[in-house]
């Protein structure tokens, strides 16, 4: 007996994007780019008091790139971002294993816990952490570790949403059960079968977390200040000195975030192709 059937999801005919849609997208893109472009222009000229700026200069960038404090700030921010996002992802993946494979009723509790940071003001979080850990004499009283902890809490809801949605999209529990029936233990099934299918979701949510860490000033300033200066604190310290230099810092922050985003999207693309 023949069971030949047609595959679904065959590639649809390539449709060109309508002109109106292109124009609309162009206008939206321009609108979103205007603040960045004006900042870029401002950072490249000596003054901008008339309709057009005057006195083109790269002085701001030269000053910035020769300042080692700036590079350390960028480096610290990247480390903060990477470590706190990584800690959150690992903790959440372990917790979500319990929710998916052991006790699904804990899902509501997890959701509640992970949503709390949404309601937590940065000032309250930072003061809370300082008053809890300062002077305890443990590793957690170190300002850098305090910041890692604070950012881990800050990005928790965003990464939780990404991981939860990715797990729901693939029906993780069913995949684990299917793997179990093939002789695979639950945790191994979670690692070998489920995780490769949610990498894309994890990467997208970590992008959001990255931009939040890069944009934070309150936590970094309150907890570490100049002890462990991140890029936003560096920006604040230089704002009074020169508006042109401040604009150059903002442009560089934007470009670094764009570069990290491009890298993550490239990784996502690679994982999807696999």
């Amino acid at each position, binding site marked *: *007996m*023949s*069971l*030949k*059937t*047609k*595959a*679904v*999801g065959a590639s649809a005919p390539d449709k060109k994007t309508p002109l109106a849609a292109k124009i609309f997208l162009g206008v939206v893109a321009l609108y979103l780019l205007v603040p960045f472009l004006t900042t870029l222009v401002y950072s490249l000229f000596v003054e901008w008091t008339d309709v057009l700026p005057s006195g083109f200069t790269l002085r701001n960038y030269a000053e910035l790139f020769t300042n080692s404090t700036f590079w350390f700030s960028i480096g610290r921010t990247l480390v903060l971002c990477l470590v706190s996002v990584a800690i959150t992802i690992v903790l959440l993946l372990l917790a979500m294993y319990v929710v998916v494979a052991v006790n699904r009723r804990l899902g509501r509790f997890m959701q509640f816990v992970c949503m709390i940071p949404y309601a937590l003001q940065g000032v309250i979080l930072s003061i809370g952490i300082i008053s809890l850990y300062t002077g305890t004499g443990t590793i957690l009283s170190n300002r850098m570790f305090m910041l890692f902890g604070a950012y881990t809490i800050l990005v928790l809801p965003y990464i939780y949403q990404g991981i939860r949605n990715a797990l729901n999209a*693939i*029906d993780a529990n*069913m*995949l684990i*059960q*299917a*793997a*179990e*029936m*093939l*002789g*695979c*233990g*639950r945790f191994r099934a979670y690692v070998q*079968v489920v995780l*490769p*299918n949610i990498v894309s979701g994890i990467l997208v949510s970590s992008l959001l977390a990255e931009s939040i860490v890069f944009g934070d000033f309150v936590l970094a300033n309150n907890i570490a200040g100049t002890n462990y200066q991140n890029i936003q604190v560096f920006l604040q310290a230089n704002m009074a000195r020169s508006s042109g230099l401040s604009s150059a810092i903002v442009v560089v922050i934007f470009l670094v975030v764009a570069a990290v985003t491009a890298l993550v999207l490239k990784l996502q693309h690679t994982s999807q192709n*696999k």
Partner: protein
Amino acid sequence: MAYIEFRDVVKRFGDNTVLDHISFGIQQGDLVTLLGPSGCGKSTLLRCLSGLETVTEGQIVLDGRDVTNVPASKRNIGMVFQQYSLFPNMTVEQNVAFGLKMKKVDPATIERKVAEAIAMVELSGKEKAYPSSLSGGQQQRAALARSIVTEPAVLLLDEPLSAIDAKLRKALQSRIREIHQELGLTTIFVTHDQDEAMVMSDVIQLFHSGRIEQAGSPVEVYTSPVSEFAASFIGSYNQLSASDFTALTGVPVPQGNVIAIRPETIGISRERPDEKDAHLVDGTVVDSTPRGNVLRYTVRLEGGTTVFVDVLFRSFHMFDRGNKVYLSLPERDCLVIPVNAASARTAA
């Protein structure tokens, strides 16, 4: 001793008893269908056997070994799920090889067995395809190959065809039956479709509210329902109350029973037939519905009761709405069935 034995199995979710003291055995090599409406407990029993659910009370024995508390991954049971559940990041080949890799089979054997299993489900040429590029039927066949390649002690099929269109479903029913016969694999098939159960099974276990209502071969279950529920679920039996049947035929029927009669056993004619061993009643055709090669008449009898009559679809011999007709109800096919399960007997 049966190959698989359920001994007084009880499963409760909170206060809800889903399996209520289930006991029966399955012989090695049989294809047994657990049939019943949604929520009757058939899938839960299957999941208890697989190890994906624990039992509240009772014991499950597989090939002489008590597996009641053995983890699912150690039971050597294959299972095909309703939702296909192929691993999206793996090709068909990798999906099928997964179970063998878990058993640490050597690569050369894996390659050979995977190729055989894929050929058996007629998916050759799709080895490198990802699940997302396969149709529902192809995905389910890949899932079937993945489950049989490990040569499990039992193959469980949990409504595997319910999401597949009618034509392909029939083809897959036959293929599953053929594979079962080729491999001699003890197979348990869960479905709520009585036609599917009839086509597939050696034995049907009919479930109702967490209990087994009736067990037997498809012919036994179809021709001799033991309860009102079995009669209504299997074969679209007409059911006449004891008082209605007595009023129509003059034959006394003990209270607490119903008369069940299959639509295809009832004769229908314009002239009063001269039949022995049959109860004759007259009625009026109120509707006719083509059902493939069968035409189903709805006939209203005296007193307002309606019955269905199935006849082979012959365009030259049809009745219209409003036609007066005679129905002959063969005595041997009028089954007296208790409202609550018990044994059945024919009404003389």
